[in-house]
């Protein structure tokens, strides 16, 4: 009797299982994304806003580059130059202060509104008045909330005039305009969505210039429109049929948030995504060996380095700083930990930027390092800590450095932490050694030159908090001067030389040990055509991609 009743239950269970199988069956054995849709698996958890006047994150830079237009863009064939995007041509006045941009005729926003010089002026105005994180890229040219409507204004329907406060190198000004913050927004559309604000001491204006709406909204004229962004889930872009250039072959591009390399690889192999963007060396190798898949890579402007806080008396000795440069096993790191995802690079300007210097003089040389330490009176070594964020390849590199330092009797303790935790400490200048990455703020040599060589006030109250300041490094005055002079050098070739010289000095004598430059990699399905990674984060274009 009892068995009978258990059997009854067993029957129900079997029936349930059969039903489940029925529901799962009939699914295609090989999943495939729709033919008109590109699906990328990508860690997009850095996105906090889609407003181009506020966004300063790498993932947003890529989305914006595909959905908005700028006055000028980086020339993909030679990234030390720019080409016109909305601008058909531009001239610089003889005194180097006035830039006049002529817009291409007949341009339209995705909304159908015409693109006019008014829109460009409004885009500048809102960036400067909102004064969010990336605003300094424009305000460094002397723009303020009070003068921006004068300094950045429409002369007529298609002529935009931009006046800067010093005779900067034109390459510097134009490079800055290729940054996300230079996106041109649809004034009419934004004005429909502005929110009233009560002016206060911190914020003098009576509206938010559409900031709240644009955080998740869209008002651009790029090859794609941004349909939706859900934090940590998805970004959806759709083809913009009003785009002035060649229309994108794909109707839709979806960035799916996926954090794990292994998960991306699985999904790529199964065909659930077309592109995997965060592959670690092991998974990248496996993808490269798979006949259905392809891989691509491109160097990016991000440097990985560690730096020595000059408040620490041992680390402040110049011989010690030099010894550290000899105590990194660059070859081993290059051939294992960062294989395929980076290449050894020891100077502060990444490859591809005007003035890059491809010199990597340092090698692992324990004897030489010991000699230098003895000279500093530290032949018996010393103890020191390093703040390390819990992520690869940073952790692996830190462990490698720990071992090589031990060979010279330096006992280094690794303090693991979450990225924001180590950064908080770094910014408060309470670390000994910090290891991390640095990405350019905009695609111009000044971005890195400034942070690595300018520190006007080394006190804790210092206002210019560059990397040099964070490490309490009192940069020699002439170097700071040289960095500033390069900013005003009109001749691009001469300007490049000045940066090369500066890099040699920093390489020889600074508390920065730069290890490698990031290479961005991607694995993608073999049926994709035209998928390429660009030379910078805001040039990973998808409007040329198609499917076979």
């Amino acid at each position, binding site marked *: *009797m*009892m068995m*009978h*009743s*258990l059997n009854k*239950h067993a029957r129900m269970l079997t029936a*349930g299982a059969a039903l*489940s*199988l029925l*529901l*799962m069956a*009939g*699914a295609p*054995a*090989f*999943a495939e*994304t*729709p033919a008109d849709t590109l*699906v990328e698996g990508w860690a997009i*958890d*850095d996105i*906090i*806003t889609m407003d181009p006047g506020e966004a*300063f*994150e790498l993932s947003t830079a890529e989305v914006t580059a595909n959905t908005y237009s700028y006055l000028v863009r980086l020339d993909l064939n030679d990234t030390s130059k720019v080409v016109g995007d909305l601008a058909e041509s531009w001239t610089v006045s003889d005194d180097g202060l006035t830039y006049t941009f002529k817009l291409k005729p007949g341009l339209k926003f995705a909304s159908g509104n015409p693109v006019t010089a008014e829109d460009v002026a409004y885009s500048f105005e809102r960036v400067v008045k909102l*004064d*969010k*994180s990336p*605003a*300094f890229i424009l305000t460094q040219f002397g723009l303020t909330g009070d003068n921006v409507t004068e300094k950045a204004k429409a002369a007529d329907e298609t002529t935009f005039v931009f006046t800067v406060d010093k005779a900067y190198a034109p390459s510097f000004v134009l490079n800055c305009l290729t940054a996300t913050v230079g996106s041109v927004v649809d004034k009419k559309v934004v004005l429909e969505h502005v929110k009233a604000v009560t002016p206060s001491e*911190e914020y003098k204006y009576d509206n938010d210039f559409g900031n709240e709406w644009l*955080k*998740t909204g869209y008002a651009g004229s790029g090859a794609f429109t941004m349909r939706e962004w*859900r*934090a*940590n*889930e*998805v970004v*959806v872009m759709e083809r913009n049929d009003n785009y002035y250039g060649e229309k994108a072959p794909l109707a839709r591009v*979806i960035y*799916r*948030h*996926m954090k794990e390399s*292994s*998960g991306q690889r*699985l999904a790529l*192999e*199964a065909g*659930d995504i077309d592109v995997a963007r965060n592959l670690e060396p092991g998974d990248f190798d496996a993808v490269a060996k798979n006949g259905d898949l392809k891989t691509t890579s491109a160097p990016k402007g991000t440097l990985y380095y560690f730096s020595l806080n000059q408040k620490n008396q041992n680390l402040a000795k110049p011989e010690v700083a030099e010894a550290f440069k000899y105590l990194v096993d660059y070859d081993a790191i290059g051939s294992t930990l960062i294989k395929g995802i980076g290449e050894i690079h020891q100077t502060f300007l990444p490859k591809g930027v005007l003035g890059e210097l491809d010199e990597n003089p340092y090698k692992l040389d324990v004897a030489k390092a010991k000699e230098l330490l003895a000279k500093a009176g530290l032949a018996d070594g010393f103890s020191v800590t390093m703040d390390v964020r819990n992520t690869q390849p940073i952790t692996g590199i830190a462990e490698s450095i720990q071992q090589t330092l031990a060979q010279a009797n330096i006992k280094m303790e690794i303090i693991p932490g*979450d990225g*924001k*935790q180590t*950064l*908080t*400490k770094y*910014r408060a200048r309470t670390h000994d050694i910090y290891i991390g990455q640095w990405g350019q*703020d905009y695609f111009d040599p000044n971005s890195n030159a400034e942070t690595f060589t300018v520190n006007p006030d080394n006190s804790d109250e210092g*206002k*210019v*908090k560059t990397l040099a300041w964070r490490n309490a490094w009192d940069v020699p005055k002439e170097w700071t001067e040289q960095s500033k002079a390069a900013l005003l050098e009109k001749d691009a070739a001469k300007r490049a030389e000045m940066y090369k010289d500066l890099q040699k000095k920093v390489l020889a004598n600074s508390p920065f040990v730069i290890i490698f430059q990031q290479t961005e990699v991607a694995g993608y399905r073999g049926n994709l055509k035209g998928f390429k990674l660009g030379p910078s984060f805001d040039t990973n274009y998808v409007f040329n991609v198609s499917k076979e």
Partner: protein
Amino acid sequence: MTLPETTQLAGRRRARANGWAGNALRFLVIIVTTYLGLLAVTFFIGRVIPIDPVLAILGDRAPTHVVERTRELLGFNKPLYQQFYIYVRDALTGNFGTSVLTTNPVMADIRRVFPATLELATLGTIIGSLIGVPLGVLAAVKRGSIADQIVRVIGLVGYSVPIFWLALLSLLLFYARLKWVAFPGRIDIVYEYSFTPVTGLYLIDSAWQGQWDVFRDVFRHIILPAGLLGYFSLAYISRMTRSFMLNELAQEYIVAARAKGLSESRIIWVHALRNAAVPLVTVIALSYAGLLEGSVLTETVFAWPGLGLYITNSLQNADMNAVLGGTIVIGSVFIAINILSDLLYRTLDPRTRAR
């Protein structure tokens, strides 16, 4: 002296009314202190962690003056107790602040992510109870047999194997190798834009709208994570069922029932299980509440956009408004489930009603 019967009755009624009021009051005090405690602990932990919340909002590259301005705007320069007061005051009016990460009001976010967790946890609990209870009964009835041993091993594995490991392995097997189930996530992107959820419970929504292809797709997404969660609650439920049943089967009324000549299946399923059901409800309710908390690891591995993943992401980004909001929701879930199981108790066990 004996009181007239009516007076006696009235007195009892009054006493019971007082009892009710007292109960309700005690209950209210418990709820309020629980919430305040929850808020205070989470709030102060959130403020003492060595992470600068402004850094979380602005990222590493924001210029100094923007950082200072933001700090001021958000009130982080005020003393802690003032910040706490402001937070509690706003929370009482239903304003839990805005999430840094998603830029939405926290409650709007939670309204979006909670149904995902609710659906997963409910299905998991259903699977766990439907399989766990019969298994437990089987183990108790056939105590010491091979069946009992097998159930024990199943339970032990469920107890001791880390869920993320099992999740990854099952993904490898059922998704990558066998292709029985769908890719992590709740729904295929193909359907994402042709399907408008109403309640946020996709299975119910798609069935309601008669979109059976969507229903099948959602089912293929949910079955593996729900099955895993089900397995884990099964492990717990079957063990508890076994011990409750053993307890009941040793009672005298069982002997009486046997003597009366009742069928064995009636004795087990109707008499014994009915009595074991009372404590079992608490067990199932607690395991359900545990799953509703958002099973962080399962949601991470299966990219399930639920409460667990939301709170973890927020924590990692020092998004304290979102963490606090999520904590309150979890607190509410626990309180609600406790009340619910209390009510169920009363229905199942007439003796608790009299008290």
